[in-house]
């Protein structure tokens, strides 16, 4: 950390321009809960930091035509304070609110969590299950891509030089829909997911599941969608047999590593358990009866 050039533009376009023309290492700063830790521990030594918190578009939670747009600079604690958002997307909010501690919650953001590109990011499986999209501003203009297309591997994203995520868009929420997110940590808080599951369901008549998305975290190089688990749910009422199929499908989809946080065996087994439990919670939230 010799000399850092710090910029705080007021438009996303300007942020993109600064990042595009940057020489040396350049980083975007939202909450800083990953960036500053990495700087302090000497892992990175940025030449340029572009703070996006002065950009109005990154600072708000808006609802347009039933779709929520969450700015890239919105701290996670603000998500839990937005009653409409909590009602529509309880799983996304509970995932985002699990990150770090109370102090971290006041700073950390979902887009930061996404772009840090950890396979264990808490908010990402819930966003993927929710069919969330990332709104990107870059040198060639704006584009919108599904959240699952952002992260390409541990620590890497598909964003090109100069591209900045401005916001996250959640789709319109129909009736009898709900999501849920669960993670496994050895402690009760202030920890990183050993494995995790996000489930998003829409029910039809008699509690029959019409649509389902199941995403898992920390069991592969990126968060993964498990279509086989969704297929096991669609067209069914939730019962133990269906849940067993969901868990089995998730276990098959897992490709985790052995490391200090968990074994292959443990992650695989528990990912299935969490998917089963998250599906049960989402089903009940959507009005399904067990």
């Amino acid at each position, binding site marked *: 950390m010799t000399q850092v050039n710090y910029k705080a533009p007021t438009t996303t376009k300007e942020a993109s321009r600064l990042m595009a023309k940057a020489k040396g290492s350049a980083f975007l700063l939202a909450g800083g809960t990953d960036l500053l830790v990495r700087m302090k521990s000497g892992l990175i030594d940025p030449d340029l930091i572009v703070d996006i918190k002065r950009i109005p578009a990154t600072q708000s939670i808006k609802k347009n035509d039933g779709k929520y747009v969450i700015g890239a600079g919105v701290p996670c604690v603000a998500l839990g304070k937005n009653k409409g958002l909590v009602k529509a997307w309880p799983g996304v909010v509970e995932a985002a609110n699990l990150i770090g501690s109370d102090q971290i919650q006041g700073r950390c953001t979902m887009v930061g969590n996404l772009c840090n590109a950890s396979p264990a990011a808490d908010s990402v499986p819930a966003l993927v299950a929710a069919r969330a999209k990332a709104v990107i501003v870059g040198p060639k203009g704006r584009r919108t891509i599904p959240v699952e297309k952002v992260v390409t591997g541990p620590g890497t994203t598909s964003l090109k030089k100069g591209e900045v995520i401005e916001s996250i868009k959640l789709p319109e929420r129909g009736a009898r829909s709900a999501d849920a997110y669960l993670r*496994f940590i*050895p*402690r009760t808080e202030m920890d990183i997911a*050993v494995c995790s599951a996000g489930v998003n369901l829409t029910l039809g008549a008699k509690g029959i599941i019409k649509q389902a998305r199941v995403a898992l975290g920390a069991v592969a190089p990126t968060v993964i969608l498990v279509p086989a688990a969704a297929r096991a749910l669609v067209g069914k009422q939730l019962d133990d047999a269906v849940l067993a199929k969901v868990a089995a499908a998730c276990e098959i989809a897992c490709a985790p590593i052995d*490391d*200090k*946080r968990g*074994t292959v065996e*443990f992650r695989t087994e*528990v990912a299935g358990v969490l998917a089963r439990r998250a599906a049960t919670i989402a089903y009940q939230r959507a009005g399904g009866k067990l």
Partner: protein
Amino acid sequence: MTADTSYTDQEFELVGTRPVRPDGIDKVTGRARYGADASAPGQLVGAILRSPHAHAKIKKIDTSKAEKLAGVKAVITSADLPDLTHGNRASFDILENCMARDRALYDGHAVAAVAAIDQVTARRALSLIKVVYKKLPHVTDVDEAMQDSAPIVQPHIRTPGGDPDKPTNISQISTFGHGDVEAGFAKAEVIVEESFKTEQTHQGYIEPHACLATLGPDGQGELWVTTQGHYTFRNICAELLGLEVANLKVTSSEIGGGFGGKTHVWMEPVALALSRKANRPVKLVMSREEVFRASGPTSSTSVDVKLGATADGRIVAATATLRYQGGAFPGIWGMLGAMTSFACYDLENVKSIGYDVLVNRPKVAAYRAPSAPMAAFGVESTMNLLAEKIGMDPVELRILNAATEGTKASYGPPYGPIGIGATLEAVQKHPHMRARLGKNQGRGMACGFWFNFGGQTCCDLNIGVDGTVNLTVGTVDVGGSRASLSLIAAEELGIPYEKVRVTIGDTASLGHNDTTEGSRGTFSSGMATIFAARNAIEELKVRAAQTWEIDAKHVDWQNGQAVARGIEHSNLGPLTLEELARKSPTTGGPIAGHNEVVADGAGVSFASHICDVEVDPETGSTKVLRYTVVQDAGKAIHPDYVEGQFQGGAAQGIGWALNEEYIYGKDGRLQNPGFLDYRIPVCSDLPFIDTKILEIPNPNHPYGIRGVGETSIVPPLAAIANAVSNAVGVRMKHIPMSPPRILKAIKEQQAGESQVSAG
């Protein structure tokens, strides 16, 4: 000064009450000054280069580029800390641990250090130091290190009684016990035998090691440091740097936790050597990563226990084999494990063998009742296996076999009055033992023992002109001892608690005080304070006698005032401490008391813990639902801080039992040197920890005090293991019982059961 230290069953006004601690406001407002909170004009920032290898020969260190960097004021290697230990191997080991010589012995071992004008320059200088290593084979596991083919950590080590020409990693074998265990097992109707493992843990104090060192070319120096024993630090630093002890003044800062880890020097001699070379003050503060890699965690262990009993539960033979790794230097940890293993029980035939083993890990330091928790885990788990096998209540089994006054301890001496039986009976009667358990829940209990220690102690008590009192002690306050010592001084003098202010004196202001370890702070400085206060009272009586112009023999000290005894003096009204203090300038000058003592006779302390857990059978996750500590304190001077010690030990034990562990890769490097992946419990991981203080007076202390700080960490590993085993129906034998280990044990049990039913 010697005095009668016997217990006297004194009646107390203040001792046993719970006033606010004197250091509380400083700590909650941030005014308290810790190790990293001192600065000096012209100070430099120190930084240490550490080995990235578990074991390597250091072929060459080139510091020339670092020395040329602008802003760098000193670069040192082992050449700047020459061996002045004159053949004292223990001192040389400390020196070698502070700075590697020809070999790096563990991941994180210091190999060079710099002092520069700021942190950025210091870090850059480290990156410019070129070290040529030749990697050597390494070993980090205690059982592997004992094998014949294991890489040798220290070539000069020989197994005692073994081949004098063969290097080994076993530095000591310690055997304790009495009777004839073979004969005992032959008589036994039931025998149980089991093996256990525990992983390495760190004390996890929140404050990293930090110091500010000044050492001039005249050989005069000062050291401000976070430590549990500044006198010990002074003596060691003076020896390693070739100084006279009087020329090195060491001041202990406020301490943010030590638990044994701050009884040893780690980098303080390096800071002094940097300061000597740069001729400027040097501040050296470890990062959390450095604390994990290069200070002193506790041993990882491997323990075998065998118990033989009659069918009605009387233990007739007990053996334990305990293997403790001490890191890269010889330790006493296996010996302490062997001494403590069976201390709770009255055994006719008992034998324990402790092995001290070297591995390529950081030098092990004391951690709260060092070595006892792992031994207790093995023994107390096996006690439950025995209870299951003979169909007896585990508390009943322990009561039947508990040591009592007069029992010959398994480590040698006979016991005086002790509290193991009383804690067990309190457990048996406790409502916790009868509370209902739900699904997936289990209950366990276990006992623990710690010796406690007294040691050299010296204090001053000065009475100010307004009648307030400065008490200066030399034992660092690690757990609220200033509050307790204020209570004791106020009790003896007969003045309010608020009139006493306790200071921890630096090494220039008092005679030698041993380190605050062995739960000795309140025990030993409490003893010295009593005698210093009584010493001051003698002088107060002389001053009163002088005022009254009577013989001092006729003056008594009662309730904070001098009283003239006898009908002939009935016209003389009492003189208060404050009145005497105000007159002191004209009656002979300042009034003070002093005491120095070797506080022998630290009373042993026993505890019994009860724990309820709930285990998620699908994830292996354990929640501690309820926890109760019952412990003998001898006499609780300030019950809040006694309870705090009980709770703190239990909390650390819960972390150790469930999640904390050093994780080494195949490369011998520590993979989790941070609080994210080294998981100490957070508040929400713990239940309220209930406490019950028993008071069985220590006959060797005027107030009956026993040390209380350490015993509380001894039972938790076993109590929680017994509870988890009870909840899941599988005996847990490997600490920590992390979720993957528990889930694996459950799955293996289920697989075994389905095989049995299939067969």
